[in-house]
Structures are given as C-alpha cells and as structure tokens.
C-alpha cells in the first residue's frame, strides 16, 4: 500500500481498472434486462399466434361443414331436376320422332309421286324428242340437199368460167405466139427482101443510079439540117 501511494502511476492504473470493472458490470446488467424483456415479448407473440391458429381451424371446420351441407342440398335438388328434365326430354323426343316419322312418310309419298310424274314426263319428252329429232333430221337432209345442189351449180358455173378463162388465156397465148411468129415472118420477109435487093442492085444498079441515090441522101440531110 505504501508502495501504491508512493507510485502515482500505479494508483491511476488501479483507479481506471476499478472504473472499467464497474462499467462492465453495469452493461452486463442492462443486457440481461433486455434479453429477459425480449423473451417475454416473444412468448406473448407465440401465445397469440397459437390462439389465432386455433380460431382459424375452428372457423375452417365450420365453413367446411356448411359447405358439405350445402353440397348435399344441391345434389339432392339436382337429382330431382334431372329426373324432371329426363321425363320432359323423353316426352319431347317421342313427339319429335313421331313428327319426323310423319314428315318422312309424307316426303316418301311425295317422292313416289314425283318419281311417277318424272317417269311420265320422261316418256313424253322421249316421244317429243323422237319427233323433234326426226323433224330436224329431215330438215338437215333438206338443207344438205339444197346446199349440195347450190354447190354443184356454183361449181359448174366456176368450172365453166374457169374453162372460159383458160380458153381466153390460151387464145391470147396463141394470138401472142401467132403475132410473134407473123412479126418474125415479116422481119424475115424484109430481111430477105433487103438481101435480094442488095444482091440484085449491087450487080444491076449503075454507078450513076448509085450516085443519084447518094445525092438524094445529101439533099435529104440538107433539108433535115443534119449538118447545122
């Protein structure tokens, strides 16, 4: 102790240690109080949760019971309605079947009637067609006969005109040939005449006559002003 009093640093350290110990104790107490309060709060919440759960289960069971009751009621009502509907349906079905059978019978009768009419009309139509066909064939034959007759007449006329044209062309050809030949003959006559004249006059014509013809040629050239 005397040592402590004598050394101030040791004293200060001892005081700080004591204060720290006291603060630790204080904090420890505070934490313990807080933990106990939290546990208590959690216990309350847990308790309330269980209560709520029990109430919910109870209510659910009540609802389920009511629902089952209602379901049973509905099923019972549905069965009654269903039997009622079945009766009505079978009744209406039988009525419909009856109506349908009547309609089918009527339709069958009508069909039979229609078929009979059709057969009758078909026979009539066939007869009419036969008559009409015969008439058309007769008309066709008449037309063919007329056209053939016309065609033959036209052909005869065309042939006649064609032959006439051919004859005309042939005649023209013959005439052309004839004229050509005649022209050729004429040319030959002239050539022969010229040759004969040339031969005869060359020998027989006197020089004076030749000169006279030359003078005549010069005179003619002068008249024609050949030398301008």
């Amino acid at each position: 102790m005397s040592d402590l009093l004598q050394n101030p640093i040791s004293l200060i350290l001892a005081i700080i240690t004591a204060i720290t110990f006291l603060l630790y104790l204080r904090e420890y107490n505070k934490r313990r109080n807080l933990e106990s309060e939290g546990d208590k709060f959690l216990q309350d919440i847990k308790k309330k949760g269980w209560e709520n759960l029990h109430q919910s289960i109870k209510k659910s069971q009540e609802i389920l019971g009511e629902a089952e009751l209602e379901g049973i009621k509905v099923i019972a009502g549905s069965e009654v309605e269903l039997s009622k509907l079945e009766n009505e349906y079978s009744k209406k079905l039988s009525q419909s079947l009856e109506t349908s059978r009547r309609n089918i019978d009527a339709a069958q009768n009508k069909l039979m009637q229609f078929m009979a009419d059709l057969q009758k009309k078909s026979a009539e139509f066939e007869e009419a067609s036969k008559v009409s066909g015969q008439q058309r064939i007769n008309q066709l034959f008449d037309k063919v006969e007329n056209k053939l007759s016309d065609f033959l007449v036209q052909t005869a006329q065309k042939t006649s005109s064609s032959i006439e044209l051919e004859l005309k062309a042939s005649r023209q050809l013959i005439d052309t040939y004839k004229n050509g030949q005649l022209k050729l003959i004429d040319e030959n006559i002239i050539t022969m005449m010229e040759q004969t004249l040339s031969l005869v006059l060359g020998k027989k014509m006197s020089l004076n006559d030749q000169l006279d013809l030359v003078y005549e040629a010069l005179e003619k050239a002068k008249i024609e002003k050949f030398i301008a």
Partner: protein
Amino acid sequence: MEEILNIILKNTYSLSQLKHRLRILKSNLLKTFFGGENQTLNSTTQDLNWLESLPENFYRKFTKDNIYQIFADLEKKISNLPTLAMYLTFEPNDTTLYQVGSVARKTFNYPSLILDIKLDPNLIAGAALVWKGVYKDYSLRAKVENRKAEIIEGFKKYLK
C-alpha cells in the same frame, strides 16, 4: 498555112485522099530540097497530075527551113477539119469521089468539108452519114425499113 491547106483542099475531098496527097507532096518536096531516091513514094499518074496541077506560087511557100514545120502544122490542122463520115455501098474512085465531094460541099455550103468514106454493103444503095457522132441512115435500106408495113401488106396481098 491556111492558104496552103485551102489549095490542097480545093480538089481533095476525102480524108484518106488528103493524107495520101500530103505524103506525096511532102515526099516530092523533100526530094526536091534534099534529093535522094529513098524519100520518094510510088506515085501514080493521078498523083503526078495532081502535083502538076498545083500552082507555082504554092511551091514557093516551101523552103528547106520551113518544110517540116509546115507539114507538122498541116497535120495538126487536118485533125481539126470538119469531117463528114459517109457510108457507101461501093468504093468510089477519084472521079466518083470528086463528084460526091463537090456535090456535098455545094449542098451543105461547106468549102473545106472533108469526107471520111467507109463501106457498108448492107445499105443496099444510097448513103448513111455521121456528123459529130450522130448517125443517120438515108440509104435504100432505111427507106425499106420505113415502108416495111406497106411492103408487107403488098406482099401479103400478092400471096393471097
């Protein structure tokens, strides 16, 4: 030059006659001026007569110095002379040529007209002329051609 040519043309009527006479004249003059036998041509009596017919003053125009020049000029002149080509059926002698030539010059009033005589026996008789490239047939053949229709008609009548 004109005078020499006019004297020559006075009684020369055809182109061949003119060329022939020029050759004779030239030959004769060359012989006169320069002598020698080689430069003469075989001249006929007619040629010699023609040479003698030329006047004295005509020959005086020629000298030793100008003879070649004159003949060269004459040849040029000849090529430019008016020439009438005449087709005949006979070959004319000098007399006939004189007759035909003088009548032609008189008829056309063309004193220097030269005839270019050609033979065409097909003409039968008469003449055909060519002047500046234009041919005209005045022969008997042309007359026959022109009256061909009448002749044929007459011939046909005769045949009937």
